[in-house]
């Protein structure tokens, strides 16, 4: 279900004037601190009543100032993971978690409580009160509270910021499943490019209260004009298909007729996946290198070479299966004589196809995906 947002509001000196439309899936709000992400989410939740604006989810119009329409928050069927946990201090963790269920309409599809609690690792905390939790525990309970309400629209404002990597890796697949199986639209704020790459169907880049760029994740993330903005982790998304799973723990994929090897992914052969390739992890070679530890070598054509002011260069490549970026030094670019049209080999180490960059969608954000593609072998990187 698509999400359409158009808002005008003023907070002190700050002017919010954001407008974007996103197809179903996860819409990530990305942007610097103070750029207006939380304000947008609050407006969608109905907690901030904008001076003018319209918000709709699929066919449901949540508010439309031109028609004087405004649904109060409790009728929007939301789950909102706030930037600060906002747990109810007088209720136990268990009661906090079940709070949304008390008000869920009859017939609402509610997720399995035990499964969510287990995923979040908060089973031992159910009898405690929020005052007796650590920061990360609070945040996990807040996530659980929102998920268990069985929302038709999930809002999550930096939900994983306070968590360790291992915990993040356990929770992220749940958001993916929500996106892919339950088809719940999600509006997600994060500063982490890894989360963007993994979850985003659509990326909306905010700046000073305005939308700077909005579009399919693959496009926005591989746009060299956007990425220097927020991240040291520019990268592109390649679409690949699962071919087979091998005994040594690797899965064989195929992109544009070429084989790619990644640590085992939990997706059936035939499934389409998206792979995140960070510009930084792509090395270029003129000839096909031999005797090296990298399993993945793709023949590509240079399509653009951009020199920065510093020592770096960003090379855009036409690879089998899509466009990728490679970040190398200007010195290397000269030494290799890189110019548009040159045929080169892109060397990507299998393990550099970052584990958390394996998302479950075929064509980023535009086709219907199939199943949980997150590899679940916890020590698969050893």
């Amino acid at each position, binding site marked *: 279900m698509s999400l359409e947002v158009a808002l005008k509001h003023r907070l002190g000196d700050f002017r919010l004037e954001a407008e974007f439309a996103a197809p179903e899936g996860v819409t990530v709000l990305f942007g610097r601190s103070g750029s207006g992400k939380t304000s947008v989410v609050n407006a969608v939740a109905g907690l901030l009543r904008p001076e003018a604006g319209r918000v709709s989810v699929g066919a449901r119009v949540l508010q439309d100032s031109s028609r004087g329409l405004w649904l109060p928050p409790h009728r929007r069927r939301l789950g*909102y993971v706030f930037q600060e946990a906002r747990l109810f201090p*007088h209720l136990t963790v268990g009661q906090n978690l079940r709070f949304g269920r008390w008000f869920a309409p009859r017939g609402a599809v509610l997720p399995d409580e035990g499964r969510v609690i287990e995923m979040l690792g908060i089973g031992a905390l159910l009898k*405690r009160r929020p*005052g007796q939790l650590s920061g990360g525990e609070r945040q996990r309970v807040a996530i659980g509270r929102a998920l268990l309400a069985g929302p038709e629209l999930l809002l999550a404002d930096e939900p994983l910021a306070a968590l360790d990597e291992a915990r993040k890796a356990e929770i992220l697949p749940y958001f993916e499943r929500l996106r892919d199986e339950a088809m719940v639209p999600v509006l997600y704020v994060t500063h982490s490019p890894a989360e963007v790459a993994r979850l985003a169907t659509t990326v909306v880049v905010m700046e000073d209260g305005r939308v700077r760029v909005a579009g399919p994740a693959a496009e926005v993330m591989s746009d060299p004009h956007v990425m220097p903005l927020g991240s040291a982790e520019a990268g592109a998304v390649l679409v690949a298909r699962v071919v087979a799973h091998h005994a040594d723990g690797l899965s064989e994929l195929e992109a544009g007729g070429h084989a790619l090897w990644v640590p085992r992914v939990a997706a059936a052969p035939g499934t389409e996946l998206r792979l995140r390739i960070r510009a930084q992890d792509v090395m270029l070679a003129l000839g096909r290198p031999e005797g090296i530890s990298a399993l993945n070598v793709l023949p590509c054509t240079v399509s653009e070479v951009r020199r920065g002011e510093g020592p770096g260069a960003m090379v855009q490549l036409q690879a089998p299966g899509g466009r990728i970026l490679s970040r190398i030094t200007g010195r290397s670019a000269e030494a290799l004589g890189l110019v548009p049209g040159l045929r080169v080999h892109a060397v990507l180490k299998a393990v550099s196809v970052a584990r958390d960059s394996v998302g479950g969608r075929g064509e980023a954000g535009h086709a219907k995906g199939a199943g949980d593609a997150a590899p679940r072998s916890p020590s698969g990187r050893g």
Partner: protein
Amino acid sequence: MGWLSPEAWQAVALSLRVALWATLVSLPFGIFIAFALARWRFPGRGLLNGLVHLPLILPPVVTGYLLLLTLGTRAPVGGFLQDIGVVFAFRWTGAALAAGIMAFPLMVRAIRLSIEAVDVKLEQAAGTLGAPRGMVFLTVTLPLILPGIVAGAVLAFAKAMGEFGATITFVSNIPGQTQTLPSAIYAFLQVPGAEGEVAKLVLVSVVIALAALALAEWVGRAVAARVAGR
């Protein structure tokens, strides 16, 4: 039992009844008005606020007279109420009403302070989870202001136990019907040399009120500890 005269025990029982009823019946109104004053902006808000405080400002006797003038059996409102079977004047119900009104500003203030201390963001969170306004109040606001409600109730109870001027003026001092502990104390104060009797009655009233206070402290502490997560 011989320690106090039967009449005095009657006054004790009546005072307890009056104070309990005054507190319990005024509590919902107190919560509602405190909420309205804390959260809503409406025309007449200042007036309502003033009205609530009036019994504090006026000498109690004046409040008693005003009650007598409006709710006495000969007064228009009182007459109407009498016709529909509600009588306050010269009944213990009237004593409860007077005590409740005198205690009302204290109760409202305490509850209002608590409501103003509630973090609206928690109520918003409840809203996003699907709770309609009334349910937000019941499941979030009310439990969070419980310490204020307890404080307001105990203030009101104590005041109702001690209230005298408005009560004796409104419902008089009829033993067994409207003679509360303070009225009985007043009567004994009219007798030179009855300090012993006065002291006994004062002691009873102090013991009751202190017990209520201790109970409230205990409840308040338990509630606060729960919320603080200790």
